[in-house]
């Protein structure tokens, strides 16, 4: 057992370095997904038929194909085909971002549809353009509502980011496997990796819960008050 412990202690700084890369991937992917998700949700609700079908197809593709397949498809296939020289980090961030974008689009779409119709009517009634109404009235409300679902997405993407090791991005999983295959301390090292992932999930979810409380509208709840 001392070997197991010392393997963990010796490799911990190395593993934790990997967690910076993991955080980098997850943060980039979540924000890319946020931008895509908002754009697509608005398009899905307010767009014309052509745009809606296009976005529905996008959502279905990213929902229906495993992330690891998408990762290989983009990194070895599409990016090479297009002559793009992305690093493993960038490739993973893009693929995970596009994947969570599809799911976030559905989260935001649901939130938009749950807003009372009168919000948009009142904004239009004051002379706001559709774009102004969406930006100033719809988005600030649906983004608040979506934080709990968003924190779900965060924990899923965090764990999916471990797939980055298959294309050689030196994140937590890749480093753990590297050390384990040399020291043969698989049990203790993968427990350590699991704990790091768990703590990152926990910290992120707590932070988002704090954010949710911070931006909460006084006296207002979406679960039927008034």
């Amino acid at each position, binding site marked *: 057992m001392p070997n197991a412990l010392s393997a963990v202690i010796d490799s911990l700084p190395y593993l934790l370095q990997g967690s910076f890369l993991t955080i980098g991937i997850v943060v980039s992917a979540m924000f890319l997904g946020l931008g895509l998700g908002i754009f697509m949700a608005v398009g899905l609700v307010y767009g014309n038929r052509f745009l809606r079908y296009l976005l529905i197809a996008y959502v279905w593709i990213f929902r229906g194909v495993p992330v690891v397949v998408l990762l290989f498809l983009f990194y070895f296939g599409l990016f090479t085909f297009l002559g793009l020289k992305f690093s493993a980090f960038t490739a993973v961030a893009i693929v995970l971002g596009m994947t969570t974008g599809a799911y976030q689009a559905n989260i935001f779409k649901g939130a938009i549809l749950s807003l*009372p119709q*009168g*919000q948009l*009517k*009142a*904004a*239009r*009634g*004051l*002379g*706001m*353009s*559709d774009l*102004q109404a969406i930006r*100033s*009235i719809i988005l*600030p*409300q649906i983004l*608040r509502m979506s934080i709990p679902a968003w924190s779900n997405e965060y924990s899923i993407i965090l764990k999916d980011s471990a797939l980055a090791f298959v294309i050689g991005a030196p994140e937590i999983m890749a480093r753990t496997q590297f050390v384990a295959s040399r020291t043969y301390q698989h049990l203790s090292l993968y427990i350590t990796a699991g704990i790091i992932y768990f703590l990152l999930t926990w910290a992120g979810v707590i932070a988002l819960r704090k954010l949710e409380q911070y931006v909460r*509208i*006084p*006296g*207002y*709840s979406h679960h039927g*008050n*008034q």
Partner: protein
Amino acid sequence: MITTTNPILRIHNISKSFGSSTILNSVSFELAKGEIKVLIGPSGGGKSTLLQCINCLVVPDSGEIELESERVDYSRKQDLYKLRQKIGMIFQDFNLFDHLTALDNITIALRKVKKLDKKEAMRRARLELDQVGLSDKEALYPAQLSGGQKQRLAIARALAMDPKILLLDEPTSALDPTLIGEVIAVIKGLAVNGMTMIMATHQISLISNLADQILFMEDGRIVEQGPPAALLAAGSTSKSQGFCDRLNELAEVEG
């Protein structure tokens, strides 16, 4: 006597259908500056749809809208935005922006639509809050206000845009009976100040005291119109009279 030789608003043959049901069937009328028209009639008669057609929240299928002699081109978004800036709308269920304070509910359109700077928008908003007696509530969110306060805030929000016409869609219907008075007082104040209004209401005191003209709507048409003095005269057999009688009986039952 109000002259309609140069109306501020002209509605001509407006029709609107949803699916196979016709909600508005060729409705026409003219509105003079300073005039108050009150829409009454059974629910489902098209009052709400008519009001929403006037500022093109619901775009009519056919017919013309002319505001200050300018005809609205429904296919041009800019035309619709301009029309809605000039016509204020008060909704039955307030439709305040839930994520904004009372003050910001008013400043948001002043800043985004009228492009006022923040300071000027706040100055104007405070003026309007004061007009409806909500000066001390500017930092509160809609969910923290009573129904009457919400509707007064909605009125302040609309007035801040300097509308030429104010449309009111049953402004007191969602209110607790004890809170109706404060909203009626604000609406009467607007009338005294000469605001041009079209209002759908079941509030008998607003109908008989404020209306220059009553429009009785049924099945998507205006079936009766005239000043309350004529339509609601003792012994009148008008539909409006019958309708108001029933409202009166209801009011007595409610105490």
